[in-house]
């Protein structure tokens, strides 16, 4: 980066920029264009969420009479009281608890599986290691739609239909996260684990006390995406769950249009949708930098 030609170019641009006026008008015109575009998008993108939230605090009478408006005249909490008290046809608390259990268990197991497997494929030497890895990776590129129906049969054979295991376990087989962990570990120098090995430490010890802490950044990222992915999964739970008590919230919401009468109890519908959104939203607010940095890591590999 520090070659003299580049420095020279830098110095030249500084001069050029302070000079002619045309360049700076160009910059301000393009600045306003960029701002207009971004702000317009932000407004369009935010309105549905805000509208959903505020509508969940309005009475049915108000929603029907006032047409489309962003803020309620009277803020009421009745909608939330109603949906939280429903424990039979649309037990939303139950669904949320199911989703929390599923997504948390899935995430923890993902972290265990990908760190152990990632260690195996990046730090251990055994015959055919890379051949095996790339064979699995290649197979996993085959479109998932083909294994959908037999996957249901397997879950059925295991007795997991209508249980949380149906959503916790199958996703652990994926190769994407292991690929990321392996890629990440290839960029980490081997000095630490090799000197530990010289000191007589075995693989389990090296994995647990040296590699696992080093993997933390990539594991956090994979964990966050596993959690949100599991929380928002839709097709699979719609297939696997018929028992209302056992569903995660995404599948449960599909039933709501019937239960709350095709937009005859709108506040309740919106309240349910908002409750289903809150956990991933909180996760994003607290761990925002990982969500963004994550894909950095991803793009670094692909580019």
């Amino acid at each position, binding site marked *: 980066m520090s070659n003299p030609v580049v420095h020279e170019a830098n110095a030249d641009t500084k001069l050029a920029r302070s000079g002619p006026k045309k360049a700076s008008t160009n910059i301000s015109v393009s600045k306003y264009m960029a701002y207009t575009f*971004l702000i317009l998008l932000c407004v369009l993108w935010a309105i549905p969420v805000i509208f959903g939230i505020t509508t969940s605090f309005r009475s049915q009478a108000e929603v029907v009479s006032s047409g489309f408006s962003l803020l309620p005249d009277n803020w009421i909490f009745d909608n939330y009281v109603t949906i939280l008290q429903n424990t039979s046809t649309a037990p939303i608390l139950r669904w949320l608890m199911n989703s929390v259990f599923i997504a948390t268990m899935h995430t923890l197991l993902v972290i265990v599986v990908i760190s152990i497997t990632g260690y195996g494929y990046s730090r251990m030497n055994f015959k055919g290691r890379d051949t095996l890895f790339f064979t699995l990776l290649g197979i996993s590129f085959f479109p998932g739609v083909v294994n959908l129906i037999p996957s249901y049969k397997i879950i059925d054979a295991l007795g997991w239909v209508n249980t949380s295991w149906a959503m916790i376990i199958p996703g652990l087989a994926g190769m994407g996260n292991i690929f990321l962990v392996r890629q990440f570990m290839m960029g980490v120098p081997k000095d630490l684990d090799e000197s530990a090995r010289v000191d007589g430490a075995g693989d389990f010890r090296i994995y647990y006390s040296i590699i696992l802490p080093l993997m933390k950044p990539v594991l956090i990222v994979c964990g966050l995406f596993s959690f949100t992915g599991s929380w928002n999964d839709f097709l699979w739970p719609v297939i696997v769950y018929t028992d209302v008590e056992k569903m995660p919230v995404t599948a449960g919401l599909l039933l709501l249009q019937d239960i709350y009468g095709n937009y005859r109890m709108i506040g309740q519908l919106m309240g349910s949708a908002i409750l289903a959104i809150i956990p991933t939203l909180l996760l994003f607010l607290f761990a925002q930098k990982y969500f963004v940095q994550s894909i950095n890591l991803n793009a670094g590999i692909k580019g």
Partner: protein
Amino acid sequence: MKKKSLTPYFFVGPHLILFIVFILLPTLYGIYASFTQWNLINDPVWVGLANYKTILFDAESTFYTQFMNGLKNTLIFVVLSVPILIVIPLMIAVSLEHKKVKMKNVIQSILYIPGLISISAAALIWSLIFNKQLGITNNVFGSETVWAANQPYAWLIIIVITVWGGVGGNMIIYRASISGVSKDLYESAEMDGAGPVRRFSSITLPSIRFPLIYTFVMTTAGAFNVFGQPLMMTDGGPRQSTTVLMMYIRQLAFGHGESIAGMASAMAVLLGLVILVISALQYYVMNRNAS
């Protein structure tokens, strides 16, 4: 010595078992099932190419009609959604890279958040927004039609919710890639009198070629698997004009009445092949044009 050679299998073994049980086996079985008559309960009965013949050539059969209609609608969705899901995130990323734009992280977060919302929650909110009596279509635009039940509005609302939820991921990939492009390139181009459009087409685009190919291929493959948006927003209507292939596959295999899983598997294999061929083509063409 012998003990040492077994250790690696403790590390890669557990995942290998999971992979075999939940990916390899079901994929192979899915291909096998496509050559059978199967109701998900009894053992599949081998019928050779019969399912494929029906689906692809028997114009009298409802499976033929369903497959052709499902594939057509899936293709319409891909063609309508993918270009927008590439272009808008790219425009956002370029705008966010502008030196003078402030509050980049806030803007980025607002545009990213819908991607964290499940399709079922998003659809409940959007259906209200497009509701004839209560939403904006009537109250703001004065439209008298029920959008979810009339074309082209049915496609419009499916695309709107898809784009709303789908720009975030690609946006971040493009941002990361663009910020990795050397600033000196832009500055020397600016000195040579290249305008913003020229700089975008001769510096930005070539520099982010791999992320572009990657997102194009992945976004397209994802779009072929579309399911939740039409199911929740239009329920496949009006008159099955938004019923996508994934909905027919689910309906045949897991719908009411006896399962027709063999036929559904054949449709799934065909969809899988379409995805594979198109991904390969995209990769090949883009890679060749770029170099």
